């Protein structure tokens, strides 16, 4: 617990100079590539993630997987070999990456309106270029942007954020890698911020259950903040495309 005290200084600043409830800088871009139906890039602090979406398209490969009432969502998470301090030998396929893929899938199917696309498949590929804490949230946010870019209907924005507890008392959000290894507990929340619903929750290490409400509350607030930033980026993107195409419509 003595380590935890260092996470936040007396004047309430964190190691990288942020305040407890401050997000890292988020920069994002939609529609990077022409080959996928949708693509996005997001930077949250130093964490950099690329996402590409293909589909909805005919189910390829194992056709028996196709569902008559909804689209199947296929997620693949991978980390570039150079994304971490040590060279990562297995960019995908180990237990942790498989777990990431599964969690990504679970969060996305809650947000995508899969029931609109029977017999189809949507592929979401995420690649972490630089891992500096909060990989999962960055992946979720990037995937959301890529899905919006692909014009795939979503219930609403799906945003994710991490939160931790400093000094066993002060909740803080958007945990960096440095803070992660210093050993505070980490709570990852993926939520639909507009309706305030939690879609995925993940926690490691331990803290007392009484702290959960406030940490969860702050994490959800973080999600809302992220949603506002993403919304701005999406609107700008639509505006840009719209004005180039002259808002042409089929009618």
């Amino acid at each position: 617990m003595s380590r935890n005290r260092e996470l936040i200084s007396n004047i309430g600043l964190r190691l990288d100079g942020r305040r407890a409830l401050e997000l890292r800088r988020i920069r994002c871009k939609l529609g990077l590539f022409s080959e996928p139906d949708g693509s996005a890039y997001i930077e949250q602090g130093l964490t950099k993630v690329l996402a590409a979406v293909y589909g909805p398209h005919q189910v390829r490969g194992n056709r028996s997987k196709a569902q008559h009432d909804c689209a199947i969502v296929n997620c693949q998470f991978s980390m570039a070999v150079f994304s971490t301090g040590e060279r990562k030998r297995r960019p995908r396929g180990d237990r942790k990456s498989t777990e990431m893929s599964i969690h990504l899938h679970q969060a996305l199917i809650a947000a995508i309106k899969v029931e609109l696309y029977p017999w189809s498949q949507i592929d979401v590929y995420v690649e972490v270029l630089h891992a500096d804490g909060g990989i999962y949230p960055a992946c979720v946010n990037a995937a959301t942007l890529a899905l919006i870019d692909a014009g795939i209907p979503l219930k609403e924005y799906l945003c994710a954020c991490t939160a931790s507890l400093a000094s066993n008392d002060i909740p803080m959000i958007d945990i960096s890698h440095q803070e992660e290894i210093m050993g505070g507990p980490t709570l990852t929340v993926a939520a639909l911020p507009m309706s305030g619903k939690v879609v995925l929750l993940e926690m490691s290490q331990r803290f007392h259950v009484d702290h959960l409400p406030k940490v969860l509350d702050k994490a959800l607030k973080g999600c809302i903040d992220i949603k506002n930033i993403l919304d701005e980026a999406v609107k700008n993107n639509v505006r840009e495309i719209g004005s180039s195409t002259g808002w042409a419509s089929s009618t």
Partner: protein
Amino acid sequence: MSKIREYTISNCEKNFLLKCLKDQTRLDGRAFDEFRNIEIEFGKDYGCCCVSLGQTRVLAQVTCEIQVPKSSRPSEGILNINIELNPIAAPNFEPTSKNDLFTQLNRTLEKCLKDSKAVDLESLCIKMSEKVWALRVDVNVLNHEGNILDCASIAALSALHHFRRPDVTCDGEDFIIHKYSQRDPIPIVIHHYPVCITYSIFERGEFILADPTLLEEGVADAFLTVGMNSYKELCGLHLGGKAELNPDILIQITQKAGNRAGIVVEQIKKAVKEENEKRLEDKSIGFHNKLCSTKNIDFEDLETCFDQWRIAPKRKHKDTEKNMIGETVEEQIQTENFSVKIEKKGSQSAVLVPEEFEEVGRVWGDSDEDEDAVVEIPKKIQTVSLLDSDSEEESTIVLNANSQTKKMEEITI
């Protein structure tokens, strides 16, 4: 092998279940927040236990060995957790495949036990950055009737709590591992006791059921697994599936889980304590208590013993004995003495040719040609092996083909 597909739940079953939930009823008559009964039994070995949660049953075994520690943590022992999904538990499980369920179960349990630092790994160190104990918890699922995770976490924790590692003493350079009979084995130091508690969520959080059965698991939208110790500290939390949940419901469930965790941990501790007392009193231990205590195998005892292990209800079956074979062996084997000759075939080889063979000698006849071939073989190998050691295998293959072609020729003649 075309495997049995995953158990799909028919629409009527699903609708019936949901309708029952609307009437505040569960199919097995439990209340929404009621858990199934936990039974913990211990095996004869240290760290072996069998836990059943209702009809779900798992077997856990802890083993230990000495390993070199990870370079990043030189003073810490190693803890590995592995849940194995056997086809014994459910027909769609495969012995080797690593599917999503497998990954998720293992990761969640790993987080619950390992990341929350429940086991004192530093006490497992024998010598810094040279020798540490590596603990391995194997959890085998014996019967899958929903909620493997809770059952596995209880089993893993009980097994760890029950386990004793052999004592090690340092004698200058050498380390002596004392057998169980020589010195009392040492229990594992456990800081806190976290268990997983799973709730299934239906209709976007309208109904929340504790400890889902297999059918309920199939119908549920999402699952909330809470890793919690008896001090009501969260040790891992996972909400996944197709969930949309209000945060206040979430907090409510975690509070409930806290109470449950206390009860479960108490039960684990009590079971282990009783077991240890039994051991001290030298009472019979192990799964087959009655079987071990009686000297002569008695049918009644065997039956009761097997009954304990019977999981599925008995079926009637037809008398299988009537289909048995009833053939008599008619032929007599003629005895014969071997008359063989051993021929020296050039340097470093010899051939054994049964004499009868020469009489039959259609394929294996020792014509001059054949003999030459046999003699040549080792020579070839010899020369090749002198030149290039890597190509022996190839040359041997070639030579084998040679002799075969020889054989073929003879047949054609």
